[in-house]
């Protein structure tokens, strides 16, 4: 297991390097410059390029990125917060933490609600509750997040005044409720659907029939035997979701005026803020790689039969 993890970390570093290279050359292949505006003259752009070292050959610029990253220096923003170190924007202004907080809360809610709902729906297959849940989850998967968020905002913040329109830094419970619900609703529904399917699959297995024949209580059949097996698809789904839930927070953060990182993932490309593009991509990639590792290890815990390496069985 330890050897496996070390190998994975080595692979992760190589992956990050490749990601950096691809991102760097892709973003430089896009026409335009961070300094282009309606009113900037070619001379202005030339001056600004010289000021920030963008006039150097690409390969030199790339080398500088790699060297600086190894030193822990993520560069300074060219456009979005001109002159501010990218590290400050991402970490010191609390943006990353805020997006993670929002994302994790939404994820926890999605898991905590989605898995039981899926189990119940599967167990009461064909019943009224199953039918109702099927409608709700289908709507939940179909409705775009920004529509749901706007609806919740208008209804609960403006009309009923139960929550603030500006959620800000999410320091109290009331300002968290709407963004977290808006964000997790899709995932809750998706997980419930996924769970229902895999649970159905599990409870039709022979070992469940055996357990039932032996007189084991329904409750423990579901919780002890079926649940564990049916969790695999959900866990597989969670890996990529973590990345999506953090980058996808853009709409939610914008709708509820939360000063998170979401906006920076989108706006940095549009405004050609190269250091932010690089930094957000690398930080996010690192996060996804770590989460994938965690998911792989989680497989092993859920189902000991799964081998992480070919040698280890």
């Amino acid at each position: 297991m330890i050897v496996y993890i070390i190998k994975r970390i080595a692979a992760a570093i190589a992956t990050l390097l490749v990601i950096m290279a691809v991102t760097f050359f892709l973003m430089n292949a896009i026409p335009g410059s961070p300094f282009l505006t309606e009113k900037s003259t070619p001379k202005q752009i030339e001056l600004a390029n010289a000021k920030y070292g963008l006039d150097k050959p690409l390969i030199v610029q790339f080398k500088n990125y790699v060297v600086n990253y190894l030193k822990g220096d993520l560069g300074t923003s060219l456009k979005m917060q001109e002159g501010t170190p990218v590290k400050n924007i991402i970490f010191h202004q609390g943006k990353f933490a805020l997006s993670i907080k929002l994302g994790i809360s939404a994820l926890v809610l999605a898991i905590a609600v989605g898995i039981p709902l899926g189990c119940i729906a599967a167990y009461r297959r064909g019943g009224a509750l199953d039918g109702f849940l099927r409608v709700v989850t289908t709507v939940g998967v179909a409705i775009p997040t920004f529509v749901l968020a706007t609806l919740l905002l208008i209804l609960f913040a403006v009309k009923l005044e139960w929550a603030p329109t500006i959620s800000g830094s999410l320091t109290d419970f009331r300002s968290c409720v709407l963004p977290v619900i808006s964000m997790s609703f899709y995932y809750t529904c998706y997980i419930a659907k996924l769970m229902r399917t895999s649970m159905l699959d599990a409870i039709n297995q022979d070992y469940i029939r055996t357990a039932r024949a032996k007189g084991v209580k329904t409750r423990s059949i579901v919780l002890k035997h079926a649940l564990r097996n049916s969790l695999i698809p959900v866990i597989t789904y969670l890996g990529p979701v973590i990345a999506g839930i953090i980058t996808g927070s853009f709409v939610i953060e914008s709708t509820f005026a939360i000063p998170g990182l979401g906006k920076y993932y989108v706006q940095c490309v549009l405004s050609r803020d190269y250091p932010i593009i690089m930094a957000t991509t690398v930080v996010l990639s690192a996060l996804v790689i770590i989460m994938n590792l965690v998911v792989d290890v989680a497989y092993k815990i859920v189902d000991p039969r799964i081998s992480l390496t070919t040698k280890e069985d």
Partner: protein
Amino acid sequence: MKKLTALLLAGAMVVSLTACGGGSGSGESASSAASAASSAVSEASSAASEAASTSEASEPVSEAAEGPVTEGFTINACIASEPETIDPALISSVDGSAYTQHQFENLMKYAMTDEQVADDPHMKMTEIVPGQAASYTVSDDLMTYTFTLRDDIFWSDGEPVKAQDFVYAWQRVVNPDTASEYGYFLNDIVKNATAIQNGEMDATELGISAPDDKTVVIELESPCAYFLEICAFASLMPERQDVVEKGANWTDPENIVVNGPYKITEWVHDSYIVMQPNEYYYDYENLGPDNIVWWLSDSETNILQSYQGGTYQFIESFPTDMIESLQASGDCFINPYVGTYYLYLNCEKITDWRVRAAMVLSVDRDHIVEDVTQGGQVPATGLVASGILDSTGKDFAYGVSELGAVYNWLSQQYPDYDLTTYSGKCELAQELYQEAVDEGAWDPNTTVVYNFNTSDTHKAIAEACGHDWKDVLGMDITLENQEWATYTNGLGEHTFGVARLGWIADYNDPVTYLELFVTGNSYNYGLYSNTEYDEAIKTAKATLAGDERDSLLYSAEEDMFAEGGFPVCPIYYYTNIYCANGLDNMGYTPMGYFFFWYATPAE
């Protein structure tokens, strides 16, 4: 291929929710999110109430839970999202300038007059008066301005404001190492500015000097009709060298030292900026609000909801389709805003002037402002935006005739057509177009490419124009949209047939527009070239305000819309739309800045 890679990177992202950079006027604001949301209300309401039942919040909240703690009279305003910078030398956006105007004061300043702006009794027009300068004198040849500073001016740390602070700031903007977006601003105006920008001279050679602590002397390259306006410009605000040299974070609340009425005291990035009165400001006693909270948001939906929920008292952007109902409720106002939305007609692609003239004539501008943009915009009749004044104070756009520059020459050459009506314009358009086709100067089967940057409004305007040209002239138009930075990059390559741009004036003088179409100007994307026109603009720039200059500029603009011309198709003049509630004594300039420093609660 380049376009494809841009799409690859940006494609999966929610492009429709992000506004394009730069100063966006009312014509640009459109929220697909909000309109889609309202149409989906019925389908989704069951899901919303389901989800909401988990909510445990029950007490009503009227204040934002997550705001700054403030005491006394507070203005909560939202005019934009996080500014790129608030360093005066580096700002380039209208919002950045607004924050700067509140924090700093230049030799001249905008002072409130009694004149009301548009329909809002609480909004006052402003004029240029001496600010940090007590008085100024101009030499007889109009080339040297000498400002004497007030005695009672101090920085917010108690140090006196010195003439050297102005010299330092002006040199800093022009210095190429600063890479200021407004570095070119003093070119051809202040002595040596152009040479310094080109790296041929040191910044210390700039024609501004401080013979003593209280005197600023500025030498010009040639007389400038709008020089006093430049002396109030946000990018040229005084700065203290020792403060700026603390590094890029000198504008953070804990480092910044200002000389204006307000000073930033707290800044939560992407959330809000708080400003409080600067106790060292000479008119501290009379300042209005105890706090100005500038909320930073880019969600039009959230901005509107927060306004309606009572958190904000002043907002500048919200979904365009809400304008009508907001106006009906009485707190939405439309201000004049000096800007023109226009189309470049590429003179190298559409080579015959009659075809270009036909295109200019056949756009139904009333339809565009009434049905597409819906923000009270005014159909444009010239390139120079309405609100720019000539030396007698007349609106330049209507200075020669009510028809406007686009139609002056045509109405004299073709008196048989009634150019006051759209149908008359179309008839003339068809006539001119047919003439060009008959002479073989234009192949009617040519497809013209119309480029615009991705936005619902620009798309709708492009569709409206394309429809008119097809309908009236039978021209085939292909619409191509590009994401903003790719688009601006492509303009310089002159590959388009038609391309849009909006130009907001920096100062109140027709030259700010007319200069754009001079041969070799970097904004002359349509490659218009007319030596007489170039000559006229050059002469006008060196001539002081008066009848002679006015007539030079008037005839230059008319030349542009005469035989051989029509490089541009003006669509509409911008307006500035805002909602304000409970505030009185606000100030405004048609350049788009709002001033709150003497604001009071409305009765």
